[in-house]
């Protein structure tokens, strides 16, 4: 779920006079952060979030096919291929100093840099499971595709559990 599509000024305008206190909190939280981080780091954060968004959308497309009565294995294979290509870029998207402690708008936990081998393994797992899913989709074997989706979803979740901030 992306969270930065709503712009503050428009809303602030609409809320003038109604709730000054809430507006202040929103501005206070935003103002000091965003500027501290170097601009190349800010742009790599955008690149990696875009990369993950594409992975998420492709995974949705795959699950959408599985929910349909007769899944289109071509769509599943292509989407798994997209995920595989994007997954290979993940490790290049996390330069040191671009985690939550930098104050940037990111959910990347510092554990990514504290346990680099584990993070590398977790990212590689998505590369491997997406490749396996693409292969399974290529054969059109429904049971193998189901298993492949489960494994790939598991690799998403495992990595999120260890390396992504969860504020629920």
């Amino acid at each position: 779920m992306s969270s930065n599509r709503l712009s503050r000024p428009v809303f602030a305008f609409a809320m003038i006079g109604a709730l000054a206190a809430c507006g202040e909190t929103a501005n206070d939280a935003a103002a000091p952060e965003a500027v501290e981080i170097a601009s190349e780091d800010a742009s790599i954060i955008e690149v990696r979030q875009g990369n993950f968004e594409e992975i998420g959308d492709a995974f949705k497309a795959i699950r959408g096919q599985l929910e349909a009565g007769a899944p289109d294995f071509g769509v599943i294979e292509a989407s798994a291929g997209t995920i595989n290509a994007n997954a290979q870029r993940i490790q290049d998207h996390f330069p040191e100093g671009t985690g939550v402690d930098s104050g940037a708008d990111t959910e990347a936990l510092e554990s990514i840099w504290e346990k680099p081998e584990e993070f590398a393994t977790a990212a590689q797992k998505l590369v491997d499971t997406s490749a396996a899913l693409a292969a399974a989709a290529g054969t059109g074997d429904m049971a193998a595709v189901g298993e492949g989706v489960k494994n790939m979803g598991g690799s998403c979740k495992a990595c999120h559990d260890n390396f992504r901030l969860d504020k629920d």
Partner: protein
Amino acid sequence: MLRQKTPIWDWPVRLSHWGFALLVPAMWWTAENGEMGWHMRLGLVLLALVLFRILWGLVGSETARFNSFLRSPWAGLQDLFGRYKRSPLAIGHSPSGGWSVAALLLVMLAQASMGLFAGDPYDGATGPLNSLVGVMTADWLTDWHETGFWVLVALIALHLLAVFGYQFLGKRNLIGPMITGAAKFDKPVAGNAGGSTFRALMCLALAGGVATAIGTGLVAHWLSG
């Protein structure tokens, strides 16, 4: 000249009104800052409050009830363009104000309801009824949940424009009565007889019960069989 203090808005109306005024910005802030845990908790409170206001619109006091303030759309349009003849001593929502209330409640209800299904289990928070729908439906509802917010913002902007228009151009204070529940008139005016406290508490219990059943996962459990 007598300045009669006349009751207009009962406490359930005021409670829900100011609850909305606090919760809607809080819903925006929590979503914007990724505080999805709070977004969902407050969303359930907002859902309960909207349900409460809708129930109270059926069984509440005179000015709270839909059948007292929902006029024809034609009357609403006339009112909007200042062509609706209304006694200066009339209390409660004007025809266009009534439509504004209905629209605000409907959009808030839609927003809260869509939020229940929103999200993706592989990507952050999911609403308590997310598991009842497919991934594509949830994705579609999530998009509309984000778009619907701007519809709500537009309605709130209109609402505030009207209230401040009355305040500064029409020289009529609508904000005070929404806080105190009463307004002063130069002439005796038939005020709003307060609704039944028992009924209000029943509405509150019912609305809160529904939101709790959803929030605790009971509803998802029942419906998934």
